[in-house]
């Protein structure tokens, strides 16, 4: 899912948090004489997408938790700086290099937008705090299909080239089935759609053989038996999907997923990075966070600091390799 499409998830807590962001950023750099964070500094929280997108919901969930548990001493000003699939917002954070008071959440576009456009920044430029969760996909077929499980699907696909629908091409929706098909040894035609709604309609109308998608958006159709889940791309299957195996379980682990994490401006003081890592370790322990993970059917995958930067670099290289091999990017 790109952020444009999951904008439907709307601005959940948008009203709750003020948007006054007149805080003079110029003061940021000089203020590190005392310990981080200073209560006098306003934390400038950039949300690189419009209200209501997956990125927005995650940012506002974290801010709520920080508020509820009094984890951050100063004021937090969250602002949506949407535009250019994240390029505008993360560009704004990039420009605050050296400051410890500029922060943002990442999502899939953090990796894919620099592959598609000439952004001045790359994911690895920012100061990594933590990878908090990953978005993973479930492969489903129409409930009326003869295919009952992933074994039958692979067997069928090896003799009859299948069509698999997903959202967008420079996206995990394309990468995951491509790598899975390579591993399992079948061929397929990828059919790219604009949104989850479009691809679900295509599958229900028997236009395509299967599709990949975020399970949270199709649970209703899975529960009613209209769609049949076959395999899950994450490390562990969410409870809502029952006993569907992961790609690793069936022996074709692909290890690609969309990172949802937290970053600071490039070259942020080490002190700030350490403070945020310690704080996020507390945040992920809260029941509110557990609830966010389960209601959005995310996979809780946690990595801190430099490990997160390595993860981002690997993910981006993996994406670039697959996309280059099909000619989607130069």
């Amino acid at each position, binding site marked *: 899912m790109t952020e444009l499409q999951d904008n439907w*998830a709307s601005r*959940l807590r948008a009203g709750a948090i003020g948007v006054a962001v007149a805080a003079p950023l110029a003061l940021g750099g000089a203020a590190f004489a005392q310990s981080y964070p200073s209560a006098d500094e306003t934390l400038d929280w950039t949300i690189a997408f419009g209200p209501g997108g997956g990125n927005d919901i995650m940012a506002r969930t974290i801010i709520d938790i920080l508020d509820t548990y009094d984890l951050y001493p100063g004021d937090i000003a969250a602002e949506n700086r949407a535009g*250019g*699939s994240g390029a505008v917002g993360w560009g704004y954070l990039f420009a605050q290099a050296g400051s410890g008071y500029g922060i943002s959440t990442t999502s899939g576009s953090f990796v894919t937008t620099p592959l*598609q456009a000439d952004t001045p920044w790359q994911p690895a430029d920012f100061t990594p705090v933590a990878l908090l969760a990953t978005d993973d996909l479930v492969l489903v077929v129409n409930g009326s299909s003869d295919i009952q499980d992933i074994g039958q699907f692979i067997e069928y696909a090896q003799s009859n080239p299948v069509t698999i629908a997903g959202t967008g091409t420079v996206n995990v929706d394309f990468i995951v089935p491509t790598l899975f098909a390579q591993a399992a040894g079948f061929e397929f035609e990828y059919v790219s759609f604009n949104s989850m709604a479009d691809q679900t*309609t295509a599958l229900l*109308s028997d236009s395509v053989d299967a599709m990949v998608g975020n399970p949270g958006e199709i649970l209703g*159709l899975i529960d009613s038996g209209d769609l049949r889940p076959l395999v899950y791309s994450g490390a562990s299957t969410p409870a809502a999907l029952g006993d569907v195996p992961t790609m690793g379980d069936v022996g074709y682990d692909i290890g690609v997923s969309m990172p949802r994490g937290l970053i600071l401006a490039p070259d942020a003081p080490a002190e700030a990075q350490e403070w945020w890592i310690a704080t996020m370790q507390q945040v992920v322990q809260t029941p509110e966070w557990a609830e966010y993970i389960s209601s959005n059917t995310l996979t809780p995958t946690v990595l801190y600091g430099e490990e997160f930067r390595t993860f981002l670099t690997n993910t981006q290289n993996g994406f670039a390799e697959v996309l280059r091999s099909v*000619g989607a990017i130069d």
Partner: protein
Amino acid sequence: MDIFSDLVMGLSIAITPINMLYLLIGALVGMIVGVIPGFGPSAGLAILLPVTFGMDPIGAIMMLAAIYYGAMYGGTITSILLNTPGESATVASTFDGFPLAKKGRAGPALVMQAVASFVGGTVGVILITILAPLFSQVSRSFGPPEYFLLAMMGMLTLIVMIGTNWKLGIISALIGFALGTVGVDLETGQGRYTFGSAELIGGIYFIPIAIGLFGLGELFYAFYSGLHKTGTGGIIQYDKESRFWPTAQDYISTRWTMARHSVLGFVVGVIPGAGATIASLMAYSTERSLSKHPERFGQGEMAGLVAPETANNAASSGAMIPLLTLGIPGSASTAVLLAAFLLWGLRPGPLFMEQNPELAWGLIASMYLGNMALLAISIFAIPLFVQMIKVPYRILGPAVVVICTLGTFSVHASFIETYLMFAAGIVGFFMRLYGFSPAALVLALVLGPLAEEALRQTLTISRGSFGIFLDRPASLWIIGVTIVLVLILPLMGRIGGSAGKAEKAGG
């Protein structure tokens, strides 16, 4: 039978003083949001969703739904008075709505659009009530081949829009198709005309172009023709108070128009992704081809306003079907409604109406009441809007610039889109001046990407064979209906000929 008792149960839930208050607030806010150019129902809903936190789910969802269909009532007002469609579903309403206002029939046009909206909305809810399960089958029989055919049907409207100067009309449509190709190519992921700019990855958004071409373009043109120098009166001549109400002739001549397009709009609305825009365009071109006076269309024909208005409201009811029965949002607006459902832990899907009968039927019942409330609000509010026409144009003009600008900005908080709106305004002025067709440009911009994507998806699925269009029952149905329309259209003579060329050229 069951339906009746379900509906009574729904009414008993909907009619509580507090819920009725929420419903009225929703309807009113929806109208206001609809009136502002740029704010469609989806932007309005997204912005107002946070207000409903802490409310009881039924009241909140009733209110949000009322904002959604209320915006469809309000959206037409600026189309008629200022030639500025607030969103894509009301573009077709400018075609005859604005000429009607220019002829001094702004009052009757506004009242008739409210009546048409009411009829379309109410018939839509009736169809939801009795046929929801049946229509959920319709929404699951549409795949890419059907969307392609549907987009081609929408393009039949271009025939009408290309106008008398067909060369310039075709150029206008081609400019629209060209703008529609900007952005990342859906199939290959390759950037087209993005020149490395991240702002252009998602393509050129339709709203700033439409507001600029229609709203600002018309305004610049009005100044060119010297309207600001006339004392009062302005763009639109407004006659005496006695001409405020529609004549009996207006109702009688459009009664079948309303009946037809309520059903047509609903059916198109049920198809996820097609929605109110295509419904209103199809209604306009169908109505014109059925009319005894097709030459009056575009000159201020009441049926030309009533048809798209009935259809877009019926379609917004129809769009509730895939939402409630499949959990698939058919449009940006129903997607926000889906988010609201999820927020309250409700997961729409095939089991939703069985598992949450109070909520589902309460919502449906509230839509009957909401449409009635909106009709009443419209009738009261119209005299206020008509006052706007009396403002001297030299004051109204700058005010329109301000509203168009701030409305455009508010949608995505984007300066780029705001500048695009100004650029479109200047281009729109020249197009208007030299006899091009801004409407054809906007339609091509909306339908072109839809048609291209659907065709390329279809050919990927069929591995290059066009036979797929004849294999699928739903496709055959659409082809059948199109043939009927196309057999009628050639009778209209010369204009029909030119449109065929436009379609080939634009693809």
